[in-house]
């Protein structure tokens, strides 16, 4: 049985020539005595060597959970991105709908504002007042403070109501 040390250790370095001899092709250079010697020594050495060269105990890490974790992470990422994209798209639709609604509302607001401004323009107000039968007030009397003196004589309005007024 020929084998080469996998790892050289300080203990084995001294026996290198022997090994070299042994490892000659065909084992021709090895005498019987040597063979016995080697075998004796070998069995001894082998035992100690086995002890020394025994690979470290494999770290028993269970791989499955890690793999599952990675897969789950990937799936979660993909699903997350999908959800995110869906959400963005959905919001874009909402945004677009809201923009349209805003335009409509803006137009409505403008329309109402326009109505208000036309109703509150002096001409419309005067017409509305005349329609209600109001007449223009004459010059008012003024009360001067703090002495309560009045300037002018308060008089009821004398204008004639519009003939188209209601009542």
């Amino acid at each position, binding site marked *: 049985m020929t084998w080469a040390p996998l790892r050289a250790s300080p203990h084995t370095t001294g026996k290198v020539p022997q090994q070299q001899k042994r490892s000659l092709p065909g084992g021709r250079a090895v005498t019987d005595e040597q063979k016995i010697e080697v075998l004796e020594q070998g069995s001894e050495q082998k035992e100690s060597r086995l002890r020394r060269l025994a690979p470290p105990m494999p770290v028993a890490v269970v791989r499955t959970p890690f793999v599952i974790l990675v897969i789950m992470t990937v799936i979660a990422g993909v699903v997350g991105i999908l959800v995110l994209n869906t959400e*963005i*798209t959905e*919001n*874009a*639709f909402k*945004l*677009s709908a809201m923009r349209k609604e805003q335009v409509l509302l*803006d*137009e409505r607001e*403008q*329309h109402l504002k*326009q109505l208000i*401004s*036309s109703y*509150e*323009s*002096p*001409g*419309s107000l*005067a017409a509305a007042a005349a329609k209600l039968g109001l007449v223009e007030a004459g*010059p*008012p009397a*003024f009360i*001067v403070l703090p002495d309560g003196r009045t*300037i*002018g004589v308060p008089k009821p309005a004398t204008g004639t109501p519009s003939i188209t007024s209601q009542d």
Partner: protein
Amino acid sequence: MAPKKRSGIGDARAYTPRGRTVRDTDAIDRRERPLRTDTPVRKSVPPQRKAVSARKAVPARKKPGRKATPPTRSRTPIKPPKIVVAPPRLGEPKRRLRLATAVSLLLFTIIGLRLIHLQLTDAPAYAATGLKDRLVTDDLPAPRGSIFDRNGNVLVHSVEARLIAVDPELVKDPGATALALQPLLGIPASELLPKLQKSKDELTGKPDRFNFLKRGVDIEEAKRIQDLKLPEIIVDHDERRVAPGDDLAANLIGFTGTDLNGLGGIEARFDELLRGQDGKFVFEVGRQGSLRQAIPGGYQMTTPAKPGSSLKLTVDRDVQYMVQRILADRMRGKDATWAAAVVLDIRTGEVVAQASYPTYSVNNYEASKVSERGDMATSAVMDPGSIHKAIVLSAALQEGVVRPDSTIEIAPNIRKGGENYKDTHPFPSGTQITLPGLMAYSSNVATIKVAEMLGPQKLFDYQRKFGLGEATGIGIPGEAAGLVQAPENWSGSSHGSIPIGLGVAVTPLQMAAVYATVANDGVWVQPKIIKETVGPDGKASPTAPANSHRVISPENAAALRQIMEAVTVVDDATGVTARLAGYRISGKTGTGLQVKDGKYALGEVASFIGMAPADQPRYVIGVFAHTPGGGGGAIAGPAFSAMMNYTLRHFKVPPTSTKPPEFVITA
């Protein structure tokens, strides 16, 4: 040659030593193999060829190879053929492989190069054409700025509207389309029809694809038109200028054309400022239907809209309305060709109201005449008449030529340069008239005498100081400068005519500013109408403060105010019609003339300019009217009184608590 067609497959099948391939063992010569002569060869001949093959069995047999030796089904034993199998010409696999490799590599290289070409060189161009198909542009409308009154009430503003147009190329039945649109657009079908007919552009010869039918249509009306679902009808965004007051301050504001460009008044003068610049929202959209909207994360480019700035005028909407109404009511009865009224805040020079008669509707300006659209207060040029006497007296008082209590010896008339100037209220020769008497009875003779004492140069200087002969720069386009003559241009009669306001060209606004100077203790303030500009962000920036300069001293101004009060106080004075209960009024009537086509036009320009309260003036109102005949007292006085009444009440000016002095007319 038959042997050449023989393939190596048969050999490969025939002999395959263990672990070696045909290639390794080199060609196998099957000639060495003993031929099976004992078994008949199966021949498979198609039935239709059977006869032929039967006849030609032997020659066919000579052809070696698969093709040549179809196994026949006939079991007739045949003679053992003398087969001479030529050694198969073996291919040169190495060469073939190399060639195939080269060809496939070449193909891949070409594909690769093409891909690189497409992806790197042409990609942007392709992407751009693709993008163009997906892009949609939304206009972001930038409305034109509004014009507000001094309290922020809208005088004119822009509202969102729609334009209705037609693509004549798509019209199938013009008659039906016209009839369908007629009630909705309010345009008779006969007017619509020509626009619906196919026509060609005169320059390019291409068919017209766009004809306006109506602009500024209400959104709701446009919706009704859209509901007709006529493919040829184009409905698009538009803007409409709306003046809620219709003719309120119309001559000041002016109007806009079809593309909302200012064509008159402040709209034209401040067009650049008011004009908005539409923005654009360019974005990528999905294909169709509900997906045809902005793609998130897609191409989006927004050019923000730049709305126009707004203007805040110094005009008060209510005063403007009343002044306009009073002016129109009074002038309609007097057959006036034009009339103007100006209300000035004397301290700031702000125009509180500026009315013109006749006026027009901003919302329907096309229906009006050009002559109705101008602002008469700044564009009408006239000879002021007696209202000019205030300038003469101001100058005389300031220069010390006369004192407030001076008297002037007058006669019923006076000759200057061959012209006879007479008084309307003649006094006997040698009457000593006081300055209040001069004003109350508007004595031409006394004024000419005062001007004589003052001298032409001084009078000219004061005319200029009071702002005559120069546009006020109020900010209304088409403002006239007027004209005052330098003394070197005076003729003999000028010494008589200019002091009484003939041969001087002024605008109503200039004259109102003169009286505002007297009211404002002698400081001339440039009239202004733009209070502030309001940016699109709502930030207001006041306009530059008005120019001002002192013309006469406060004492002289106060003295002149009191002198002019006689005009309304003295019982048979010219301006009694301008009296206002509760307030002391100081003012002056005038009867001027208007020059038209190089000569005085028929009729007179009646005017009254006054201030109230006389002891502490707040407002100056000038009323001018070109009527067939009639003095300032009769025509402009009552209008002034009504306007001043409203203005003082509107601004809550308390009545005058003091009594006017007793005026002495003659000494």
